[in-house]
């Protein structure tokens, strides 16, 4: 604990004590000496950044005086010793020249350049690993000087806010995180977390009839990876403009039914208060405070005097709908403070946290009751509730599947344009094949989660694929009808039969239909009734334009004829009826699923760089810096060479420093083309082909048994699936998704327990979730500015 207090205490003292050496020594002593400085500074940065920003704004203006002495004493010698060889006037590697850098950063000189230095030092990207490395205290001194001078100049490095974004999470040292040596007590910062788009969709009906015309105010940028991070999402003017118009639409409807609005007489205080409370409970999920009622009543009285009851009521209803708690979920930690300065979430806070973590909805009755009765006040209490929700099939838990969609990124496939001609019939017009392959991938994941054993390994290696499109659905229903025709026609449809159809379609109830299947709009209401089945049968006859049973049962509709090709199947090779899965040769898990391969491809070619980057970052915890802006990232056109050969451009020294982390891994996947089809030959222009070369090497993973040559992606995946580090990296991502933030070394205990829970349960994802959602990281909050409370 003291670790954080120490670090947190440092930045303000920068101002008063620019003599940095002792500071740095203090920091280093405070920590176990084996803690690498980058990780330590990362925590410091994570926890101090916003404070730095605000402290900054409050400072009054004082004359700016550069600390030239510290520059001359430690910074300048550092640059000369560790940087000058490559970044001098003549060498200027990557266009960075440090020889003439100004000491007067405080007056705003060379801000860009100093920021670059700070970043390189902080992330330990420079000096390169094969050069002489500075001592931690030397590095520390330079960074402290830069930060202090930057601050004097009225600036602050954007590095620290970047460190809170998902792309920087891997900078936390993996080995340390899982070493079990760290004994700090975990917590999440006290925080606001913007309402998610899914929660909004689920609660909007509470706003009354006007909600039919609501628009989504909380869209998430449709980017790759985990999206919903508490620290990154704000309710800004774009959000507010939609909130305002939603509120207006809802209020217009509500006042039509408001007795106050339709009366000319001013309501009594009590009547007004009860109208306000009723609306407040619907959209803020609690009783309003007395002061809140008073404020809203004041708004009403003021407006009513100027414009009458109806207008006044309309504004009050809008104001309640715009309450900040319907925009941000507030997680401050309202429990008692413990010995480590942390406060546990209150029962109600915990109920919301658990509900939002799994269900995209406010807490159900059982959670609220538990909160009310004091049965949500410990980790064990949280376990009971999480286990209950996970076990109950009647409760939708869309957040779980969404984790895998965001982690693997396969749900980005529909964005990669694939043209029909090039594929030999990969029909795109009107129907988006990749979007349907995403549904197949959902099925693949759900099947593994259903069994809940050895989940991560199965995700990486299972060869059980689902091939499901709209025709599959119809053929299956048709087949079911044919098998039971006499009974169904006679109106006999016992419950057991109804269950059989559900089972064949891999559904627990009809409510799952639209979640699992990408159906036409007019099939979305399918409810398994005899009438609905017969409607499908009629469609089948008219759309297939035949009565030939063989065709009706075993063929795809013309529109979907080429659908199975990405699984290396022809339409006539299988009947594609449910239940499935199919075992497919030459495939292993999600990374060879067509949806993943398409999502990680370019429009007209594979993308070994992106595929390799994915494996390096998501499975090996590696760190790859942003592409430098000076780089020409285009791949040379040459119709006589394979893509791998053309990518040799990236093997130049200055490129290879980063590309060696990606390309060798991505080359393994060259056994699949950019549509996800298995191949031995790569097509070049004019019908030429060349044999695929997918042989490559895995290096620098930090785990000895992982490193080494591999024949192709299949061999690579087999090796990855056995790795402890790979499993732990996946758990780190699960942590990020459910906590809504990056992990820090401080969360070590949580992660170690989560990993243990997973292993001891035989690889149960549910066990992992129970562990994480009852961990200190999930249940405790701490305000990071001790003085502010």
């Amino acid at each position, binding site marked *: 604990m003291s670790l954080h207090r120490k670090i947190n205490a440092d930045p303000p003292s920068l101002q008063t004590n620019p003599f940095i050496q002792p500071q740095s020594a203090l920091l280093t002593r405070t920590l176990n000496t084996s803690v690498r400085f980058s990780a330590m500074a990362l925590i410091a940065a994570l926890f101090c950044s*916003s404070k730095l920003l*605000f402290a900054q704004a409050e400072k009054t203006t004082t004359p700016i005086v550069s600390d030239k002495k510290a520059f001359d004493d430690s910074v300048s010698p550092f640059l000369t010793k560790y940087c000058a060889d490559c970044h001098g006037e003549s060498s200027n590697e990557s266009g960075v020249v440090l020889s003439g850098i100004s000491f007067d950063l405080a007056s705003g000189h060379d801000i860009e350049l100093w920021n670059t230095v700070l970043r390189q030092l902080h992330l330990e990207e420079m000096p390169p690993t094969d050069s002489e490395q500075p001592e931690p205290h030397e590095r520390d001194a330079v960074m402290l000087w830069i930060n202090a001078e930057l601050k004097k100049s009225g600036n602050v490095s954007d590095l620290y806010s970047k460190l809170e974004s998902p792309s920087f999470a891997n900078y936390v040292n993996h080995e340390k995180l899982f070493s079990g040596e760290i004994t700090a007590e975990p917590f999440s910062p006290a*925080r606001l977390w*913007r309402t998610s788009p899914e929660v909004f969709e689920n609660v909007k009906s509470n706003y009354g009839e006007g909600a039919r015309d609501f628009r989504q105010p909380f869209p998430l940028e449709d980017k790759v990876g985990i999206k919903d991070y508490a620290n990154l999402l704000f309710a800004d*003017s774009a959000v507010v403009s939609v909130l305002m118009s939603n509120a207006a639409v809802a209020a217009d409807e509500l006042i039509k039914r408001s007795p106050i609005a339709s009366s000319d007489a001013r309501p009594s205080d009590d009547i007004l208060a009860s109208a306000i409370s009723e609306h407040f409970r619907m959209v803020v999920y609690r009783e309003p405070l007395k002061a809140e009622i008073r*404020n809203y009543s004041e708004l009403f009285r003021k407006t009513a005097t100027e414009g009458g009851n109806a207008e006044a009521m309309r504004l009050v209803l809008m104001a309640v709908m715009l309450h900040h708690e319907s925009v941000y979920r507030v997680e401050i930690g309202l429990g008692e403070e413990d010995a480590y300065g942390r406060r546990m979430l209150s029962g109600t806070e915990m109920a919301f946290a658990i509900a939002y973590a799994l269900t995209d909805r406010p807490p159900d009755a059982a959670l609220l009751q538990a909160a009310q009765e004091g049965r949500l006040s410990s980790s064990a209490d949280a376990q009971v509730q999480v286990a209950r929700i996970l076990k109950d099939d009647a409760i939708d838990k869309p957040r779980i599947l969404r984790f895998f969609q965001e982690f693997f990124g396969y749900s980005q496939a529909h964005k990669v*344009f694939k043209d029909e001609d090039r594929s030999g019939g990969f029909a795109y017009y009107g129907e988006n094949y990749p979007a349907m392959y995403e549904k197949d991938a959902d099925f693949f994941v759900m099947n593994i989660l259903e069994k809940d054993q050895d989940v991560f390994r199965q995700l990486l290696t299972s060869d059980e694929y689902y091939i499901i499109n709209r025709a599959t659905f119809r053929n299956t229903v048709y087949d079911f009808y044919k098998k039971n025709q006499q009974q169904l026609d006679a109106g006999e449809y016992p419950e057991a039969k109804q269950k059989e159809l559900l089972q064949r379609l891999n559904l627990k109830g009809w409510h799952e239909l639209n979640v699992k299947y990408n159906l036409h709009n007019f099939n979305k209401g399918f409810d398994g009734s005899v009438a609905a089945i017969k409607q499908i049968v009629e469609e089948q006859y008219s759309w297939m334009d035949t009565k030939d049973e063989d065709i009706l049962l075993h063929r795809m509709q013309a529109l979907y004829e080429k659908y199975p090709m990405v699984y290396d199947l022809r339409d006539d090779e299988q009947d594609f009826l449910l239940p499935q899965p199919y075992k497919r040769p030459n495939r292993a898990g999600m990374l060879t699923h067509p949806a993943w391969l398409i999502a990680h491809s370019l429009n*007209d070619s594979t993308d070994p760089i992106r595929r390799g980057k994915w494996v390096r970052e998501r499975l090996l915890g590696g760190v790859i810096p942003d592409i430098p802006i000076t780089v020409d990232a285009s791949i040379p056109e040459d119709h006589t060479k394979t893509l791998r050969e053309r990518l040799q451009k990236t093997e130049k020294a200055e490129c290879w420093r980063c590309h060696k982390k990606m390309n060798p891994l991505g080359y393994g996947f060259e056994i699949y083309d950019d549509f996800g089809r298995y191949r031995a030959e790569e097509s070049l222009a004019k019908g030429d082909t060349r044999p695929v070369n997918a042989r490559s090497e895995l290096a620098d993973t930090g785990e000895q048994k992982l490193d080494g040559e591999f024949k192709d992606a299949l061999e690579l995946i087999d090796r990855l699936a056995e790795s402890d580090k790979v499993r732990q990296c996946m758990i780190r991502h699960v942590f990020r998704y459910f906590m809504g933030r990056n992990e820090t070394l401080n969360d070590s205990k949580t992660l170690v327990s989560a990993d243990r829970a997973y292993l001891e349960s035989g690889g149960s994802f549910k066990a992992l979730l129970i562990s994480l959602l009852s961990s200190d990281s999930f249940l405790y909050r701490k305000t990071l500015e001790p003085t502010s409370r």
Partner: protein
Amino acid sequence: MNPTRRHALKNLSLGAGSFLLSPFLRQVELQAAGSSNALPNRFVFVVKSSGIIPDGITPDAFKGKDSSGSLFNQDLTNVPLPSSMHALEPFKDQLSIVQGLSGKMCRGGHSSWFGMMGVYMTGGEFDAGAVIRATADAELAKLNPAPFNHLGLAIRGKALSSDYGGTMYPGISAVGPGQELPFQGSPDIAYEQLFGSAVAASSGAEKRFKLQGNLLDFMVDDIKKVSKAIPSSEHGKMNAYLNAFEELQVRHSKLSSMKEQIAANAPGYSDKFTSTVEEVRQEAQFDLATAALIAGLTNVVTIRLDNVDMTYKKLGIDEHNHGIGHNEGTKSQTEYREIIQQHHSELLATMAGKLRAVPEGDGDMLDNTMIIFLSDSSDNHHGTGMEWPYLIVGGGGGKLKLPGRYLRYPKYGEKGCRTIGDWWTTLLNAYGNPIKYYGNEDLVLKQNGCSHAGPLEELLV
């Protein structure tokens, strides 16, 4: 510039909170001072459904004259327009017709959805699909800020939908990834939103505008109060929320300060704005768009002109646009289309005429405006994307070599052929966005060595 306008703009620039809208205010200040290169660029995008048949907007003189592999670029001012475009004859010096640009990277069929101005493939028959970037009209709106930055007015919604009225999302325009531009489908509501601050359109509109100030004040006070109970590390999030309401306060007070200006230019309120007759609703939305431009309330308007489900009954047509597209009804498709085009030309001409009547700089407002008439389904009822015709009225501030020209680019796949991505890149480049290429590239063209992907150099001044 008319005296009222200049006077009002001067007042406006002294209004409170100008820091938030500085680009806009700087612009109007310069304008008020009479500096002509500070004149705003205005754009009106008029999006029709069911395609624009290229031949239907080609002057007879240019029909059948194949450019065979090179750009056909002719003076338009000396040739008669097709008779269905007669209403635009007086504006021929400011008129341009651009044909032959392909859009195969967009969805074909009844609507390309956002593809038309976003240059990518998305959506299905009924579904507008994903918004991956701001469409070009919205990008131009960002460059030309105003109190209503980007005004969306709709007569109808999505391509095949029968909805109309209220806030609509026709799926054609987006302000950013995942963020559709809202369109107002009820002229009376649009009237209130645009002019309600200054003109009593319906009983209570002006009052409602005034009272809205109470709500904004309440929110600002309330958020400030509760922020004190929020950990200071989270103040940034509360500040963002607070700033959003403060911005609305600024707009509110700015509209209040523009009262004179707005009142002077507001269209007279009549039952036109509550009519249910489609052609009248079109007129109403055009009136509102024009008046909003003249009053300085906006610089960029996108109008959803009709959709496939709509029937032009007042024009004597008995078939909805979908039926016409499928050759149903008593007349031929061409005959129907000519009747409708004549009506569209009149709408465009009326708008152009009103803008021409307002002096601005050394000329008039039409000189600094581009009215772009286009279709959401390229060249036909079921668009092929093979070409995407544009009809443009207005001088566009002299930033493009377009007024008075007829251009036809080489056919798809021929040497020198170009795409709508190139077209929007040209517009963005000409008006201040230096983007190298806007939109998705046509990969088939690229693979076949047709090097598009950049502005249409011949149009740039």
